[in-house]
């Protein structure tokens, strides 16, 4: 049964609607210094129990995945037990795959990514670690594959991460052999090459071959040196014979990560690149 519109759409409804629209537009225009405390207050009050629930759910999900992996490893070990040499080899390989955490040693905080169902989720997202866990603004956020982003603001239990896909993201980088330095930024959203990074500011005379690994350079003091950013895939453009820009395939897609590590303290090594090479031993 259709309901009469006249009974529903009163003048008060229209005024409330217009008021909400105006408040929304005002919220969009808020400067960061006013927006961030407001958003932080909401996260620490109304949303705190819901975020805690989401964190527990993510942990449960990860535990189930780990359980399956452990069962698979146990079955493999039982099968391999009949061949001791193979078992030793398998153990050695598993130790090598223990993960990034032990290789980092200390100065990091593991955190679950609290993804939200909105289109801009891949640009900024929440992680379940905050001030109480030692997270600070501008901390690097990494996964075992490489850099995910930078901590933008910190609450008591959660932090906001700006991923490399955010239009305002920039990082000072270098080629793996240290021959070339530049700045990486999101390539943009136009064309088929969206979700790529671009390496800017490379002198025209310096060629960067396809497949070159790009790492953070440590210049500027925000990001530690040696975190993988991605791999050069092509030349994006040339500027009148004095500069080239290269396309870089990112090492990790922010929408796909479920767990990250936030680097909170001074790194044990001046160059972190060896920590991201799979199978490298713990220090």
């Amino acid at each position, binding site marked *: *049964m*259709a*309901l*009469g*519109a006249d*009974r*529903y*759409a*009163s003048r*008060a*409804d229209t005024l*409330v*609607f217009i008021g*909400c*629209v105006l*408040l*929304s537009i*005002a*919220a*969009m225009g*808020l400067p960061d210094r006013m*927006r961030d405390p*407001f*958003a*932080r207050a*909401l*996260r620490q009050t109304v*949303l705190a129990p*819901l*975020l805690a*629930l*989401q964190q527990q*759910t993510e942990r449960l*999900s990860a535990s189930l995945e780990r359980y399956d992996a452990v069962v698979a490893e146990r079955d493999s070990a039982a099968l391999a037990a009949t061949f001791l040499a193979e078992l030793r080899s398998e153990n050695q390989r598993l130790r090598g795959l223990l993960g990034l955490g032990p290789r980092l040693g200390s100065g990091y905080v593991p955190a679950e990514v*609290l*993804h*939200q*169902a*909105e*289109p*801009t*989720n891949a*640009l*900024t997202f*929440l992680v379940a670690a905050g001030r109480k866990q030692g997270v600070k603004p501008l901390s690097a956020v990494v996964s075992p594959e490489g850099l995910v982003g930078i901590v*933008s*603001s910190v609450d008591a239990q959660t932090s906001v991460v700006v991923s490399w896909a*955010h*239009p305002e993201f920039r990082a000072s980088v270098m080629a793996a052999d240290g021959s070339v330095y530049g700045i990486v930024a999101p390539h*943009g*959203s*136009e*064309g*088929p*090459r*969206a*979700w790529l990074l671009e390496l800017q500011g490379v002198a025209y005379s310096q060629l960067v071959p396809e497949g070159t690994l790009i790492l953070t350079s440590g210049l500027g003091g925000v990001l530690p040196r040696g975190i993988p950013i991605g791999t050069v895939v092509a030349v994006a453009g040339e500027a009148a014979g004095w500069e080239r820009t290269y396309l870089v395939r990112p090492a990790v*897609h922010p*929408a*796909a990560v479920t767990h990250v590590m936030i680097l909170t303290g001074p790194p044990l090594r001046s160059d972190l690149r060896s920590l991201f090479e799979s199978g490298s031993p713990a220090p």
Partner: protein
Amino acid sequence: MRRSDRYRFYIILVGLVVLQFAVTVRLWGRPVGPDFLLLALLMYSIRAQPGRGAGAGFLIGLLRDALTPASFGAGALAHTLVGYLSAWGKAVFFAENVWVNGYLFFAGTWLRNLVVAVASGKLKGTMLGWELLVWSPLQSATTAVAGVLVLWLFGRHLAIRLGEA
């Protein structure tokens, strides 16, 4: 309408809010599962007056903006529009049919994503195209299916008019 009906209705809405933070469905690494929070808003607003729908949408959008600061304000605008339009549209066009409600859930989710993507100004070109033509329809479809299931399971408790109280 009995008072117990109203309580059951709000309990179902709270259940949807809890589900939003307890269930994550991924496809190729992207969260494309049902948006239970938006579903709760739509179920509320199509039973309420447009002003209340808009107000509820604004509050929900503002809370979501606190979780995704890249689009701060855009979520509030999008949810306000969806809340108001669904309440108004329900009053004018929609019959008490579960499938029509399913289409409303699909359209509401897609419209929300469209407004957020455009109003935030962060997604353009190909990224915007992928978002609106691939990911948003997938999320809208899962949200619509979840909404139809909820109506099928709890339809009796949801068949109320909030404006009549």
